[in-house]
């Protein structure tokens, strides 16, 4: 949808002025966000605030809209309706050229790792720093540091296809944290891992959170959710589940 269309729709609802208000500790704000693929509505009227430094699980059954929500946050998809603000940046006002800049504020982890198979572990992680023009010496130091943190520095020179699933995900975590982003988005990060590896990855996410990052994890890994480590946001059929009170919780973040 066009920017203008989006604005008009918000005006219709008499709520456009709410975006003028900015709550200091809100780093992600989704307001009445919908995403449609043709006639299919993947997300419907989703309103959610995530505070700076928060750890949030977004959970729900398959098709609930978890991955769509993550995609909207890193602008892998554009919302059909509503507004998203990330770290003060209004996504519906962002130009195509500004998208990379926004993504540099994020660390993103995927279920299928999304590592470049023709590059080594080191190169995959260093890429994030190369993109922002960090000097080679600094890249070397910071990349090795990130690899050490996830415990895979001994395999820095290897190509990623030879690694196990758990190791690949550790590389993906290293890539997500090496740029020291304020927000980490993880889409089913443990979905294709065994229990040990999953637990290791969860620990790494907690470490990143402890270091100050806001972490949003889309998952249906109950073991992880049941640890009670973070806030749980439940989605069902593209909507926030009102039965478990999450709607109310999310609504509390809005200055309506």
């Amino acid at each position, binding site marked *: 949808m066009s920017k203008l269309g989006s604005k008009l729709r918000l005006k219709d609802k008499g709520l456009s002025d709410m975006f003028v208000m900015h709550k200091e500790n809100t780093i992600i704000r989704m307001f009445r966000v919908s995403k449609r693929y043709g006639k299919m509505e993947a997300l419907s009227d989703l309103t959610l605030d995530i505070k700076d430094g928060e750890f949030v699980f977004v959970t729900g059954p398959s098709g609930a809209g978890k991955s769509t929500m993550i995609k909207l946050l890193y602008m892998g998809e554009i919302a059909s309706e509503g507004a998203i603000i990330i770290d003060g940046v209004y996504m519906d006002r962002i130009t195509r*050229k500004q998208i990379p800049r926004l*993504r540099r504020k994020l660390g993103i982890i995927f279920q299928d790792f*999304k590592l470049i198979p023709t590059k080594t572990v080191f190169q995959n992680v260093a*890429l994030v720093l190369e993109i922002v*023009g960090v000097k080679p010496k600094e890249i070397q130091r910071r990349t090795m540091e990130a690899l050490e943190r996830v415990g895979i520095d001994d395999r820095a020179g290897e190509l990623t296809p030879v690694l196990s699933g758990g190791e690949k995900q550790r590389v993906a975590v290293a890539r997500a944290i090496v740029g020291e982003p304020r927000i980490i988005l993880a889409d089913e990060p443990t979905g294709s891992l065994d229990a040990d590896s999953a637990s290791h990855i969860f620990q790494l996410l907690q470490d990143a959170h402890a270091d100050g990052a806001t972490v949003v994890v889309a998952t249906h890994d109950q073991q992880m959710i049941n640890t009670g480590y973070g806030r749980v946001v439940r989605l069902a059929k593209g909507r926030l589940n009102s039965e478990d009170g999450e709607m109310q919780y999310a609504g509390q973040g809005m200055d309506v």
Partner: protein
Amino acid sequence: MSMLAAKRALRDIRSNIFLNMVSVLTIALSVFIVSAFMLFFINATDFLDGWRKGVRIIVYMTDGASEAERLSLTEAIQKTGAAQEVVFISRDEAFKDLKKKIGDQSSLLDGLDKNPLPDSLEITLKDVYRGPEDIEALAARIAGLPQVDDVEYAQKWLQRFAGVYNLFKITGLVLASIFFIATLLIIANTIRIIMFSRREEIEIIRIVGADENFIRYPLFIEAILQGFLGGFLGIVALFLAFVLTVPNLSIEGAFSFFEMRFIPVKFSLAIVLCSMTIGWIGCYFSIRKFLKL
């Protein structure tokens, strides 16, 4: 940033070495063919220029023309304004000259009852009248003058050569255009294949925050490098072919004034530069099509 892009371009070339080699060789072949035509034109133009400098019209006079008639004809020719010099060659002089030219076999002429050669006038033309059309028009005009029996110049040869030259010129231009487009498409397709084979990688790079320049620059460098290497190899191959072939071509007799030469350095550089520009353009179109969000 540019150093990093160059490094990444070299790394990409290494990982797609076969595709890049095929691309470079195809460009080299195109450049070779187009440059071969250029080589022909340069030498054909030199040859025509050289030949024109020595071009003469021979006017054979009717038998028994008087001295006064000869002078009047000479005057009429000079009036055309095309003649730089008009030299009278008497039939006796011409006969002596002929005898000298045929050397050992001059005894064959001894059996003749009388000198069969006519008096003639040899006309050297001014520079501006040395074009094939000018010579032809002048010859026709002179042929119409009184006391002129026949006019001779290298008419047929000149026409044939000019015809071949023009044919090659058109063919060369058509081929150059075809190869220009072919080279453009080759580079564009190579880049497109490279981008297609790396679409996942490009997608990942984008997700982690790369802007379009980060993706584009190495590809531009790659395409320009392909253009450079293809152009350079094409010219070098043509030079080698030239060096190996030309000493075996003997140009003797009337054409000994002519010496073949290779495409001048500045033209060779222009060809390589052109090839690099084509690389850039090809890449630009591929990327523009591919990098739409």
